[in-house]
């Protein structure tokens, strides 16, 4: 649980150092769209085509070696593969035992390959996503979202959520620390005490929202956080997107 806080902290830290995801992805808008295309192309690979999936690892590998920034963070995050994915992959391993190929005496079953494909897809798609998002400062992601016509309500919500998650996480950690200091083993950590701890945190949060509203109202807030209208998707963006689509298509066709 402490890793969560530190990962928010380090996600933010990465954001300050890297100004741009990668010069090869163009603007923030095209970077996000190219990432989406990448993930779509990757996930459309058939369930037995392991080389095809691994070839797509080229994209995150390229981005991380260009930017050098988030590689450590991305790797750290990737090591915690969702247990759900692992269960499903091992399900395939157990259920599909038909032998499909033999490499220097080792027989591979269909399940081994499709299971490996699930794990590889999971790692590569997440690496692709993180190596882009961890490099773009959050306010710029929000502006890109505006360009995609995401409703204003949601963009505002995202900005506030992002701003206050570290503040409230610190408060939550402190409260949990206060509880643990007086708990001695497990006795104080039962659910009833936790409910009142979470309840207290909730009341603090609501009070904070009230002060926040006052601060916003004092500065002319009328319901919109972003008054500046984000730039549109430009012809340059489309060019970048088209170029990368071609690359992804080529990868799909070759493997």
């Amino acid at each position, binding site marked *: *649980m402490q890793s969560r*806080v530190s990962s*928010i902290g380090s*996600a933010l830290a990465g954001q300050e150092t890297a100004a741009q995801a990668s*010069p090869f992805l163009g603007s923030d808008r095209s970077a996000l769209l190219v990432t989406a295309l990448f993930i*779509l192309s990757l*996930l*459309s*690979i*058939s369930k*037995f*085509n392991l*080389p095809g999936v691994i070839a797509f690892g080229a994209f995150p*590998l390229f981005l991380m*070696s*260009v930017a050098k920034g988030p590689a450590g963070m991305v790797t750290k995050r990737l090591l915690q593969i*969702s247990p759900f994915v692992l*269960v*499903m992959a091992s*399900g*395939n391993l157990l259920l599909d035992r*038909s*032998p*499909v*190929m033999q*490499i220097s005496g080792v027989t591979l079953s*269909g399940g081994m390959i*499709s299971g490996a494909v*699930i*794990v590889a897809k*999971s790692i590569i798609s997440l690496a692709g*996503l993180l190596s882009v998002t961890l490099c773009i400062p959050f306010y710029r*992601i929000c502006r890109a979202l505006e360009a995609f016509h995401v409703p204003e*309500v*949601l963009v505002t*919500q995202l900005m506030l*959520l*992002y*701003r206050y*998650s570290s503040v*409230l*996480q610190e408060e939550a950690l402190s409260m949990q620390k206060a509880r643990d200091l007086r708990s001695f083993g497990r006795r104080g*950590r039962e*659910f009833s005490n936790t*409910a*009142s701890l*979470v*309840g*207290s945190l*909730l*009341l603090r*949060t*609501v009070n904070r929202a009230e002060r*926040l*509203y006052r601060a916003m*109202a004092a500065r002319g807030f*009328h*319901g919109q956080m972003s008054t500046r209208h984000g730039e549109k998707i430009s012809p340059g963006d489309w060019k970048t997107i088209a170029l990368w689509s071609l690359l992804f298509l*080529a990868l799909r066709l*070759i493997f």
Partner: protein
Amino acid sequence: MHMADALLSPVTGGAFWIASGALIGYSAKKITEEHDVMKTPLMGVLGAFVFAAQMINFSIPGTGSSGHLGGGLLLTVLLGPYRAFITLASVLIIQCLFFADGGLLALGCNIFNLAFFPAFIAYPFIYRIIAGNAPTPGKLAAGSMMAATAGLLMGAFFVVFETLVSGITELPFSTFVLFMLPVHLAIGIIEGLVTWGVLAFVARTDPALLVPAKSSVRPRFTFALFAVLALLVGSVVSWFASSQPDGLEWSIKKVTGSAEFSPAGNPVHEALAAFQQKMAFLPDYGFKSAPESLANPESPVNAGTSLSGIVGTLSVLAVAGTAGLLLGRKRNEPKHL
């Protein structure tokens, strides 16, 4: 439980993106119409609160393990369905973008599974009916437990559905359901207990917070219709897609009109093949290493292509990595001057 990219086909994922996107658009419209600007910061910090509350863990009686709050039902009780839906969606988006919980394609599914059910089904049709406006402690307990559990079970059922429809797992439906539902029943009961505990705490210390805002208490009939429509889009399109697990191949087939896409008549492929002939490590792409006899004729896996594929793959990775390093260094140089 978060749905994951790797278990989804593009069509299924896309269908749920559309369904969740429509729900977000509709909720945003409803919220904008309310003109209650005071709730904007409240939604923001409550979203952060869900994140923070998830870090507080507690021991689950009799198991020795620990759990934490999900928050879907709790937020809906405090904010009403539309605002809670947007808030929960924002939590899931941040989790997706910065922690890669689930993944980008799975985001639509996750919003649907984890935000739609508590906000638009469990709250109005279970919690509100049991607990009413001024709940007694007993009703509060029953309402939170039932609604939280039901919401989670519905979400879990949809995880099963989305996965099977994508055709990537080999698990049969019954096994999968038997695996998912008990796990989520347990998670749901814990979620219900904590939600109840927190609501009871708030009822004792600041009861005014639990009085629902009149206008957003309950989605109206048009909304119910809309929700059913979203469900239909999500499930029907995915179901339809289930016969075509491989989305791109499927669409290419539609375009080219042939099941196998034959190299002949496809200029792009021909050109690429020729290019590859010249450049690739293994000129003979169909290099055969495994005995023919072993290869299952039914199997979609071609041993030869796979092996040469692996070598080719490794070279692609090497090229990409080296190019990145070179380009990265070149780009950094001017800065050092």
